[in-house]
């Protein structure tokens, strides 16, 4: 076993990135993720890497675009309003098939909103966010240990599929401290980067990294190739956790820090004699429809809990396909759902 440390979520993301071989980080300050930048500013010079505070989120994502074009592992991080600014660059990187890791430690919106935890960027993260037909691989950690492991995985997945991978966390995950066990060595996937624009040394044809194809027939073929890739990922990369679902009459569906609260609810409910389980998506895109197929027969109902108005709810309904009732409870604006509130909803569902 490697080191066992008590660390803050944001710092673990930064450490994980460095361990995954990321040596280029471009960022801009915004609460509640700024500790990532602090950690990178301190550590990158010591490992021969680059930390650069950009003049804006827009510039930061374009610096990521440049570094990713050279084939290097690169990351940026921000929180909701800043991620909105990055959407242009994310669309371009997706169009140019560039691997990069982007962290969104979500806060309440819309607009400048607030700085307390939220999950209201689910649609933005999983349905595209910027213009065009594209997806990101979206990973939703729910503990500091998972922030570490999934950040490393994000770099591997990004390289493997030549696309943007996003770590979607929230203010709770970014700010909390838990014990993290670091591995002695990271499982780094070496991917082909012969497409990179890094200088041809007069030894090959010139490479071009671009997202523009003015001929619609060419652009359609490019899109078809992207969609084929997304299909493969949907089949191969779904991840989820099932917790006490085998005998559950009600299955809560929740991700990230809300899934932690939901675990408390499962315990409290079972102490009351109500059999509740938890289905926790770990990949939000691809959405883990396979998990629903595994558990669909047993429960009387599903209950989606989110720190939003009910965004993942739509994917849950698509996965359940009308076979069981799907309920929702959630909080918005930086408020965190309480165990008692979720229990009240469960009692209400049972009374129906």
């Amino acid at each position, binding site marked *: 076993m490697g080191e066992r440390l008590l660390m803050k979520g944001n710092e673990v993301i930064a450490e994980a990135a460095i361990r995954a071989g990321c040596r280029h980080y471009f960022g801009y300050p915004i609460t509640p993720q700024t500790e990532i930048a602090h950690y990178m500013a301190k550590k990158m010079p010591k490992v021969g890497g680059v930390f650069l505070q950009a003049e804006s989120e827009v510039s930061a994502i*374009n610096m990521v675009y440049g570094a990713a074009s050279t084939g290097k592992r690169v990351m940026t991080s921000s929180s909701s309003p800043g991620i909105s600014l990055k959407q*242009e660059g994310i669309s371009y990187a997706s169009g140019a098939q560039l691997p990069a890791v982007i962290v969104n430690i979500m806060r309440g919106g819309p607009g400048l909103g607030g700085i307390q935890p939220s999950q209201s960027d689910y649609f933005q993260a999983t349905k595209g966010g910027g213009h065009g037909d594209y997806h990101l691989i979206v990973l939703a950690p729910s503990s500091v240990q998972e922030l570490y492991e999934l950040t490393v995985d994000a770099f591997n997945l990004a390289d493997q599929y030549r696309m943007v991978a996003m770590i979607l966390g929230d203010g709770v995950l970014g700010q909390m401290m838990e014990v993290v066990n670091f591995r002695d060595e990271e499982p780094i996937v070496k991917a082909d980067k012969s497409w990179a*624009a890094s200088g041809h040394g007069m030894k090959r044809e010139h490479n071009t990294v671009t997202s523009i194809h003015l001929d619609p027939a060419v652009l359609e073929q490019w899109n078809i190739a992207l969609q084929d890739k997304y299909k493969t990922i949907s089949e191969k990369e779904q991840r989820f956790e099932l917790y006490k679902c085998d005998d559950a009459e009600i299955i809560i569906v929740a991700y990230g820090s809300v899934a932690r609260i939901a675990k408390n609810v499962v315990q409290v409910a079972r102490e009351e004699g109500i059999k509740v389980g938890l289905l926790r998506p770990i990949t939000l895109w691809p959405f883990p429809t396979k998990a629903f197929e595994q558990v669909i027969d047993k429960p009387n109902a599903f209950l989606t809990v989110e720190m939003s108005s009910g965004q993942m709810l739509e994917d849950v309904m698509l996965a359940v396909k009308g076979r069981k009732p799907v309920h929702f409870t959630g909080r918005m604006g930086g408020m965190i759902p309480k165990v008692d509130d979720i229990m009240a909803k469960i009692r209400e569902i049972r009374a129906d």
Partner: protein
Amino acid sequence: MAVVFDRPHALVDIPMHYCPGCTHGIAHRLVAEALDELDIEGRTVGVSSVGCSYNNYFYFNCDMIQAAHGRAPAVATGVKRSLPDNIVFTYQGDGDLAAIGTAEIVHAAARGENITVIFINNTIYGMTSGQMAPTTLLNQVTTTTPYGRDAKEHGNPIRVCEMLSTLKGPAYIERASLHDIKNIKKAKEAVKKAFKVQMAGKGFSLVELLSTCPTNWGLDPLESLDRVKNEMMEYYPLGVFAGKDLEV
């Protein structure tokens, strides 16, 4: 038969899509000649922008990256910070560099980012058909200033070289013109020097090239060259604005 004039190796042998009388082709050639003469094509990464030159990644033989509108200096920063030993240049028009990309160019210059910027100033948006650019001269008629650019209504044209030379970051800034042979030769020396400044690790270099846009100016090619000389050079004087005494 002796070859006295040939296509530079750093230019791909395909026809360009630019309008007759447009000076983009000359500017491309000057960049390509510099890459050839300095023998740096193999380690150069170019960043094309958004505007008429959006697809010059087809024309340059070095590795190329296509950037979002205005973001080329940020993209180039990402490239240079990843490959500090490579040569990195951006090729940007006036709308790209001085309107939507103002923040990116100012901060790349302020950081003294060791990249070379080729800045094409033709006082108009070409690709989207002749709208006002930040460099459009007062009284100039464009599709979005049909009664002429009025300072009160539309603001004044931006002099990029003068503005950036107030910063400490830039090592070398020069404005040249492409309106006649004598000036093209001077422009070539400026472009070459800008790359040499980068090769020497001196920091940010920018060459502004006064250029034509016959199509959107509504002038023929020769009239367009005259306009550069007679109208543009008055507001945009040629010369070195930073690094006058810099030897490379």
